[in-house]
């Protein structure tokens, strides 16, 4: 039997006011029945356009300019609207990143699911309903019958995505297109969804086109993988060959830029890809990656079209003019044990909590207490990095905001160098403001679109260090050099900068007052991996040789392992495990830490599937929990103990685990 989906030299153009640009350029891709093909690349590489072209659903202004898209041997371009409609939803189904944009908020889950078979020829509504319930069970939703009568907003993000997958599978399609299906989800939920997709694929034999920027998820799910850059397929092959022996410099760059979950910090640096993809690169005659390529030679790479050629094994192709001459890939330098000794304690948190009251008053709703953060005792040392990991709702960002003074008054004791750290920013004296600064997560909102980069840097210099206009200008230029930004960007506005550049400005701004403590809340999670690596290196460089302390908030365990000296694992507002990084990443583990480690996607196709997949979801922070906060999801729960009694703290030196389990002390 032939391919389910075949792209034959597909090019897609976008015509806009600013002229025509090429989004896809001669993409060849095929998916056999039952096969899972991954498509990776950074933002702007054309991944999503491939997904849309596979359904002939290109947005306005985009059109197929060359090539053919064949679905089960039929040319999509030659089909009429009626044929296409029968195809979409029935033979091809799609799962997008945001489940709420696929679900109708005013219809029950049941009605939306039953609609699928009814639209495709089912006459008996009761039978359609029975199938819908069965499908909800297939996607492992608890209490399928009750879920049928719920509205989308009554489900969690992970449950919503399960419903979308159920809806996609209702018509028993032969191809499932998934565009970043797990990107907005927490790692434990992501792991569960990926497991579900693997199971369903084995059961229904559905072919999958899986689009993701996350190499780890592709490695876990796919048989073959294609790497896109600037609309061109630069490498394709079996997932093992591509991940084990990447041939194209871009693929190598993507893999090398990732921090390694299984390797501790030791002064090693990540290998970022230089530069960013700019619009001119798309029109480049030769290799679009040339300006960023470490191995590029303009004479051979920039002259003409480059064909895909065999790289290593059969079916493993790469589009590189210098494939034969590329140096062998060197593994990142082995960690020298150069880890600097941590200095004295700078920030000390003792039983810090932050509770919010909602409802009551004129809102007409009952007054409830939201426990965003409870009883956190942590310390950050000079010259070291304290990392806080956990999923959304764990309270890690609340801790960051309490330290930064953005959450107002908090409970418990917080001190900086032994002196109490006042509650909110509005009550902190300027000298204290200067000492604690913050880098925010979202590069789109970290800078005011109304102010230039230079202004954003000069203002804190004048406020916090009391510099005059001319001094501030010179110092701003020095700051920009320190974060490796070209001086001419000072005149630019934020929208003229790339995400990575904006984040560098944000770091420079935080450094303006020469702080003692830098709080970074997910500083790289919104950036592409290649840019991420550069920012991580920058932070490491800034810390090395200074006695500044960094509090790093992150959901990315690999990043934490790479950067942290101390790690706190948080769940539902509580610190469940805390200690030096080496000890937290080695057993004994809190069951939640263990689950997080198992769930973290690794860019390794041979990594075993996670042994522990957490089910259920985090309880609401408004619930009062008498036992262990993790008891409702813990795979090692002891009934009668964990759900009734608060866990004791198991202490192994500097390492603390809040759990009822008896742990054997670590060796040594």
């Amino acid at each position, binding site marked *: 039997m032939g391919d389910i989906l075949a792209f034959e030299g597909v090019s897609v153009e976008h015509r806009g*006011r600013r002229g025509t640009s090429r989004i896809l350029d001669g993409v060849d891709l095929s998916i056999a029945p039952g096969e899972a093909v991954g498509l990776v690349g950074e933002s702007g590489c054309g991944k999503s356009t491939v997904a849309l072209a596979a359904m002939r659903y290109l947005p306005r202004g985009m059109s197929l300019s060359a090539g053919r898209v064949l679905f089960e041997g039929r040319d999509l371009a030659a089909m009429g609207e009626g044929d296409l409609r029968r195809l979409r939803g029935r033979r091809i189904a799609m799962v997008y990143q945001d489940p709420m944009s696929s679900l109708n908020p005013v219809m029950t889950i049941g009605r939306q699911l039953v609609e699928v078979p009814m639209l495709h020829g089912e006459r008996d509504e009761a039978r359609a309903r029975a199938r819908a319930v069965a499908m909800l069970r297939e996607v492992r939703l608890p209490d399928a019958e009750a879920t049928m009568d719920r509205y989308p907003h009554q489900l969690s993000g992970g449950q919503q995505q399960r419903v979308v997958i159920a809806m996609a599978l209702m018509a028993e399609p032969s191809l499932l297109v998934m565009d970043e299906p797990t990107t907005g989800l927490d790692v434990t939920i992501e792991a569960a969804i990926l497991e579900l997709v693997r199971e369903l694929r084995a059961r229904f034999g559905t072919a999958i086109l899986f689009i993701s920027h996350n190499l780890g998820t592709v490695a876990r799910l796919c048989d073959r993988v294609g790497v896109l850059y600037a609309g061109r397929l630069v490498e394709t092959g079996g997932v093992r060959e591509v991940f084990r022996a990447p041939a194209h410099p871009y693929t190598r760059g993507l893999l090398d830029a990732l921090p390694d979950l299984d390797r501790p910090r030791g002064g090693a640096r990540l290998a970022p890809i230089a530069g960013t993809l700019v619009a001119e690169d798309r029109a480049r005659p030769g290799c679009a990656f040339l300006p960023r390529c470490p191995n590029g030679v303009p004479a051979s790479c920039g002259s003409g079209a480059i064909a895909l050629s065999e790289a290593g094994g059969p079916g493993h192709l790469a589009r590189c003019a210098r494939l034969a001459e590329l140096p062998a890939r060197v593994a990142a330098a082995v960690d020298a044990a150069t880890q600097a000794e941590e200095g004295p304690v700078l920030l000390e948190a003792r039983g810090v909590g932050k509770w919010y009251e909602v409802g009551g008053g004129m809102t007409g709703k009952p007054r409830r207490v939201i426990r965003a953060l409870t009883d956190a005792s942590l310390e950050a040392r000079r010259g070291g990095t304290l990392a806080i990991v956990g999923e959304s709702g764990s309270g890690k960002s609340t801790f960051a905001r309490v330290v930064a003074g*953005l959450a107002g008054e908090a409970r418990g004791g917080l001190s900086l160098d032994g002196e109490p750290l006042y509650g909110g920013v509005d009550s902190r004296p300027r000298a204290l403001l200067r000492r604690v600064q913050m880098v925010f997560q979202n590069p789109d909102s970290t800078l005011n679109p109304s*102010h230039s980069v230079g202004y954003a840097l000069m203002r804190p210099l004048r406020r916090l260090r009391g510099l005059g206009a001319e001094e501030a200008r010179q110092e701003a230029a020095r700051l920009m050099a320190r974060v490796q930004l070209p001086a001419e960007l000072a005149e630019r506005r934020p929208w003229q900068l790339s995400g990575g550049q904006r984040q560098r400005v944000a770091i420079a701004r935080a450094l303006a007052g020469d702080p003692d403590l830098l709080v970074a809340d997910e500083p790289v999670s919104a950036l592409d991996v290649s840019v991420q690596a550069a920012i991580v290196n920058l932070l490491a460089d800034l810390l090395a040789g200074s006695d500044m302390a960094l509090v790093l908030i992150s959901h990315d365990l690999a990043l934490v392992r790479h950067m942290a000296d101390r790690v706190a694992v948080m769940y539902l507002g509580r610190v469940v495990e805390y200690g030096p990084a080496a000890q937290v990443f080695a057993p004994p583990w809190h069951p939640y830490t263990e689950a997080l480690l198992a769930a973290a996607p690794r860019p390794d196709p041979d990594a075993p599937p996670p042994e522990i997949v957490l089910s259920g979801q985090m309880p609401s922070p408004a619930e009062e929990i008498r036992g262990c906060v993790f008891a409702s999801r813990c795979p090692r729960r002891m009934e009668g103990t964990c759900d009734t009694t608060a866990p004791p703290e198991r202490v192994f030196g500097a390492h603390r685990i809040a759990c009822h389990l008896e742990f054997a002390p670590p060796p040594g």
Partner: protein
Amino acid sequence: MTARPAAWIALLARSPVGCVGAAIVLSWAALGLLAPWLAPHPPNRIDPALIAYPYPTAANWLGVDQLGRDILSRLMWGARTVLTVAPAAVLGAAALGTLLGLVAGYKGGAVDSILMRVGDTLLAFPKIILYLIVIARFGASAFNIIAVVTVTQAPIIARIVRAVTLDVKNRDYVAAARMRGEPTWFVLLAEILPNARGPLIVDFFLRLGYTVIAIGVLGFLGIGLPPPDPDWGSMIKESYGTIFVWPHMTLIPALAVSSLVIGFNFLATGLREASEDG
């Protein structure tokens, strides 16, 4: 969304509707500004001799009114009035509304509730009745018209600014400003307000159009600017009784009002279009 005025003008130039609007408004502004030199006759000169044949002639291009006053000259002087009073009133409303919107949005809680409820109460009154009450009580003058328009329009502008403030105040750059100890007024005026500039400018021109109508209505009701100074609304009022005998006396000032309102609306539409895809 762009920041500099020059950029706004460049954006406007890309929108045909906006250009038409700008042309209409600028023509009236030029006529009003140059009225002392361009107007063919003194606007208040009564010439009973002309009433025998009030229609357009070589000497009086748009004819004369029921007292024999030159309509074209009165229109030009009237443009002067309406183009001073309307912008002054809307500027006043924008200043007051912006301040209230910023404070309500940023402070939230009780301050927000009180300010917004007071605004709602004001909006719940039919505007024209408010105008009547104020003018009847304090007398008809340019200042009173400006004051009453300022007070009645401010709540609407406050809502626009409040909406932007609610959105922007939780952005990270506002947190960054607070972390360097910026005073509240600085956060409001330098960090939040510039982001409301786009919607405010569009609304400003729309609102100018409405205010031109409002001033016309006040004139028509006889509580506009005191006579004998020319005012488009009073021109309509003074002549509408004879609309079937001498239609031009009523229709010409009515067309003047409409054209200026349309000009402001087109300008607002053009700016919005330009800022949306810019």
